[in-house]
């Protein structure tokens, strides 16, 4: 079996402008939705109480909502969680009432109506914890970006580092845009997923950059955009197969992982799809705009083949 039988290098870079415009529009839309709709942050970030209760039969969400509202809570979210029998209730932080009192009060009220209802899970987060999580998340993001730029600048060239980070931050913003647009719940697990995607799509860009460097060295006569086209074309097969395999795993989580992993898998799926797009079309194009030249990567044109001290020696065939 062999899926990819590409005779000629596909001239991706000819369309670089169009492709970059597409990603710029997607990016702008994502930012727009993030600003106008905002993220639907989970209780871990906002503080408050979440309860998950299970009924024996299909639960009547409307009734549950009325019941909880009658206890004097405003801004309560009641929704199905996983199956139609499981209900998730989200209560805001209330001054003077502890979470224990809150959850007991609500469970008591629900049990008065239907004795079958059982408590599956409660979660209470104080407001101070949420702030720290946001801070920690942003710090992690900054460190990832910085670390990757430094590493790529050291291994390749600063232009690649910057290109990879811009391309992949654009993935992150687009994932966040999806979460804002659909108002999917953004939890800590999703945050972990988003940051993992950042590493994962940089990984993707690195594979292509590696080929670009190798092609620069091998084909002296080709222009920069021909080299990039060649690099993308020759990694095409690997790109698709790898991502299909990773996606198989992520889909397995999506279908079997239950509600807790649902949004995590969703974030990864979007991340993987846009990760391919951005590293193939955006990262390489940005590196091209930044003016990557053969001389940037092939430092000494005349040197001994297979010099063991040369960090790039392995790429020489």
């Amino acid at each position, binding site marked *: 079996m062999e899926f990819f039988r590409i005779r000629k290098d596909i001239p991706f870079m000819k369309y670089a402008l169009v492709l970059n415009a597409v990603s710029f529009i997607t990016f702008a839309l994502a930012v727009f939705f993030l600003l106008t709709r905002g993220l639907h942050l989970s209780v871990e970030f906002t503080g408050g109480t979440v309860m998950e209760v299970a009924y024996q039969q299909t639960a009547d969400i409307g009734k549950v909502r009325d019941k909880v509202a009658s206890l004097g809570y405003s801004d309560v979210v009641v929704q199905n969680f996983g199956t139609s029998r499981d209900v998730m209730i989200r209560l805001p932080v209330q001054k003077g009432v502890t979470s224990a009192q809150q959850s007991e009060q609500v469970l008591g009220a629900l049990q008065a109506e239907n004795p079958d209802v059982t408590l599956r899970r409660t979660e209470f987060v104080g407001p*101070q914890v949420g702030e720290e999580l946001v801070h920690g998340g942003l710090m992690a*993001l900054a460190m990832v970006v910085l670390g990757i730029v430094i590493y790529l600048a050291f291994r390749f060239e600063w232009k690649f580092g910057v290109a990879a980070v811009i391309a992949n931050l654009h993935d992150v913003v687009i994932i966040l845009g999806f979460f804002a647009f659909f108002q999917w719940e953004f939890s800590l697990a999703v945050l972990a997923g988003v940051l993992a995607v950042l590493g994962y799509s940089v990984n993707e860009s690195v594979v292509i950059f590696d080929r670009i460097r190798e092609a620069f060295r091998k084909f002296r006569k080709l222009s920069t955009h021909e080299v990039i086209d*060649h690099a993308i074309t020759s990694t095409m097969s690997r790109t698709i197969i790898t991502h299909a395999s990773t996606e198989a795993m992520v889909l397995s*989580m999506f279908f079997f992982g239950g509600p807790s992993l649902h949004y995590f898998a969703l974030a990864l799926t979007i991340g993987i799809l846009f990760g391919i797009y951005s590293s193939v079309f955006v990262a390489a194009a940005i590196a091209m705009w930044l003016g990557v030249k053969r001389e940037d990567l092939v430092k000494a044109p005349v040197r001994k083949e297979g010099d063991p001290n040369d960090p790039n020696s392995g790429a020489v065939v």
Partner: protein
Amino acid sequence: MNRYPVWKYAIIVIALLVGVVYTLPNFFGEAPAVQVSSAKSTVKVDDAVLQKVQTALQAASLPTDHLALEGTSVRARFDTPDDQLKAKDVIQRALITDATDPAYIVALNLVSRSPDWLTALGAKPMYLGLDLRGGVHFMLQVDMQAALTKKAESLAGDLRTMLRDKNIRHGGISRDGQTVEVRVRDQATLMAARNLIADQFPDLQASDVPDGSDGFVLRATIKPEALRKVQEQALKQNMTTLHNRINELGVAEPVIQQQGLDRIVVQLPGVQDTAKAKDILGRTATLEVRMVDESSEARSAEMGSGPVPFGTEKYNDRNGQSLIVKKQVVLTGENLTDAQPGFDSQTQEPTVNLTLDAKGSRIFKDVTRENVGKRMAIILFEKGKGEVVTAPVIRSEIGGGRVQISGRMTTVEANDTSLLLRAGSLAAPMEIIEEYTIGPSLGADNINRGIHSVVWGMVAIAVFMCLYYMVFGVISTIALGVNVLLLLAILSMLQATLTLPGIAAMALAIGVAIDSNVLINERIREELRGGASPQAAIQAGYENAWHTILDSNVTTLIAGLALLAFGTGVVRGFAVVHCIGIVTSMFSAVFFSRGLVNLWYGRRKKLKSVSIGQVWKPEGDDHRSVASRGNSN
């Protein structure tokens, strides 16, 4: 060219063996067990307890397949939950004589079913997180400001007494937040007060500010080192108190951990009754000092031969000795700022040293002056039940707020008494800032979901790889299996806590690890397409792919490490597995899979073809393209 030296194979074999040994315990599952641990710091669980448990079980003819003293607890393993429940009753009856004041905690638990030889090798199963086994998690924040204010208050009192003793006249001492302010009229007094603070109060640092026209203000603040010490002590004391209280709940493996400077995490696996747990955690024990009634009626009541006189109450001490004390409360725990074990400077006897605040010292001075030769009792109230901690005789008037209790105490007793006295008041109030409860059914569901995601994802990848890359696909799949094995082994060795996000990270690690094998296999195909001989293609494929794999994995690792450094809770658990997964994947996908390839193909001198699926070659020279040009180079 594709041969590994023996030592490389040796590394592979050793890694596999270690991997298998450390992963194995996770597959034996858990057996119902009964765990006996100590409920009091004075009670030790040792071989004698083990013997008692053994005889009790034998008498009830309950078969255990494993009974041992592990650390500070005795664990007995049973076949069925039914036996477990029966055994719990039997052991409880055998060990606990006084049901109202149990010396041991007999709790139901789950222990690994893994055989002894694995345990002897140090191979233990991973610890399941609360989201997988069910239970309660609390994060408590200690109010350090309150602890510091309390400390400043007590220092202000001490300073007042000391100034009076040294005859330094001052215009008043006040506490403003955490600073103590002393008003003085002239320069000389200022100097004197300043020197006194420098000499006698190592915890304070003083600075003077002019106070308008009529004098000076000396501002004393707690030194940063002392601040840290106060905070550490407050945290430690709160943790000790929590430990004592949680023991009552009979939880088999409670986790009480410090997190950061001012937080405590409490995890109670298997506990479902949050309300009760919270009630116990949040309860404050109170301490009262009362006078002992030493009239003859009270004596007879103490012996149990007469009624308790009017206006008095009867309390027992820890040895069951009763004591009649007056109802009137002299002092409460609020006035007690510290209790520490120590030694008498003259007799070298163990002592308990109490420190009282300013108000407490005044009252104490008056009471002791009027009651020399009589006894006073210090009573700890918890759960509305009072217990006499100690009842010393007053030898002389005690001023200055420093009280020493001595006489017929061992060092251990002095330690316990001071611990109990300190427990009478939590060092600083605590607040629950995070809490979650996971029902046991949800925990079991989560395990199944996690396992299903990993297994089905892996099956899908394996089937595809084998079909697409043939023998090389099979090798890649085996390498992937080895990756999972090593990942599990390392997590078990680290005794990491496995959570649902951890399982998700494992799934993702597998999905990403296959990338390395795809890179290698694609490279080999490319070399073959370019016309290289099979052996040369394998060699070049691995060589070229390695550099890409290294670069891409290091970038992913950077992301993982950043998550590890700045993440908390869920994110951290995810990051640990993610990082380890990257490292193991480099070993399995490159080093191990090359070993397999070398073993399979490397020894054949005249290798005609390798089974890596169909390798398509562009036909004809008219269509020579850049792509093919690259490969024929």
